[in-house]
């Protein structure tokens, strides 16, 4: 019990949370949403975003009442953004993240830095390159961000969902399509990690 007295509650929360706690809490978000009559699926906000930006004039796929159907989800991701601010400002871990040896070697060989401690409210969850304007505006950096984002937006809509919609909501409902989608996530992720990224980075 001594740990409770040796550091504040906030200090305790600031360390990274174990996977089983995180898993339970993420499932509880899905359950709470179901009880509000909504289905957990974040990538739908991208379709709603296109609709809000006027894409409904060009394609029926975006011609729907986005406020009525997805307004709640846009509020939800606004909360997700605020939650990120709160957690990185008040609950930032004092130490840099620990990562596996193989991962450390792999990312360094591609020119990415190892985790740094949280500094100036930047949480250190991404390599320093992601805040380095020189990298961001380099050919490599821009292609990583632009192509990566494009694949996420195109792929999630083609597959009809992302990690929240398929891996968590879909598998919880024993949906075979979601299992196929998750297998796809790994085919893509492994090909990119083992073959394509080392080739270009």
């Amino acid at each position, binding site marked *: 019990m001594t740990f409770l007295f040796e550091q504040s509650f906030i200090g305790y*929360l600031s360390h990274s949370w174990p*996977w089983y706690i*995180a898993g339970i809490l993420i*499932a509880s978000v899905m359950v709470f949403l*179901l*009880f509000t*009559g909504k289905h957990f699926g974040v990538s739908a*906000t*991208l*379709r709603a975003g*296109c609709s809000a930006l006027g894409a409904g004039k*060009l394609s029926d*796929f*975006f011609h729907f009442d986005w406020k009525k159907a997805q307004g*709640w989800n846009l*509020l*939800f991701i*606004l*909360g*997700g*953004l*605020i*939650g*990120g*601010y709160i*957690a990185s400002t008040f609950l930032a871990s004092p130490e840099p993240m620990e*990562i*596996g040896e193989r*991962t450390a070697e*792999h990312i360094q060989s591609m020119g990415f830095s190892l*985790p740094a401690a949280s500094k100036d409210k930047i949480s250190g*969850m991404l390599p320093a390159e992601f805040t380095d304007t020189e990298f961001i505006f380099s050919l490599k950096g821009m292609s990583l*961000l*632009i192509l*990566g*984002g*494009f694949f996420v*937006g195109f*792929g999630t809509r*083609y*597959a*009809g969902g*992302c*990690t*929240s919609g398929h891996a*968590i909501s879909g*598998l*919880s409902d024993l*949906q*075979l*399509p979601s299992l*196929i*989608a998750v297998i*796809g*996530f790994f085919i*893509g*992720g492994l090909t*990119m990690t083992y073959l*394509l*990224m080392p080739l270009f980075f």
Partner: protein
Amino acid sequence: MRNTIFNIVKFVGLGIFFGIVMTKAEVISWYRIQEMFLFDNFHMYGVIGTAVVIGLISVQLMKKYKAKDINGREIKFEPKAFSVARYLFGGTIFGFGWAMTGACPGPMYTLVGHGYWAMLIVIASALFGTFIYGMVKSKLPH
């Protein structure tokens, strides 16, 4: 009016909770995603696995007891239309992007809250990707 305010508090509040959980569980970290695809750490598998097990139990109980939502309507689970091509191809393309940016859609927004403004570029191109999908949808195998 009261209803609108309640909705805002409810969904923004749940989102804040989700953002904090994703941050503290480090599932928004590019490093954790690299570890996951390199099979170098159990962490991500543990998080998603636990969420699915708890989710599965909850959903089965909700179905069995015909649970109702806060508006008194029965919670419905629509089965997804079966296909292989759509989920496999779409999933693979998403997997490329997940491994590159280390972010699926939820974490993108949370990382902006962390001050990683470069994620705005990722969100903008994800919107563009979704838009292009909408435009070429009828020409793709589904």
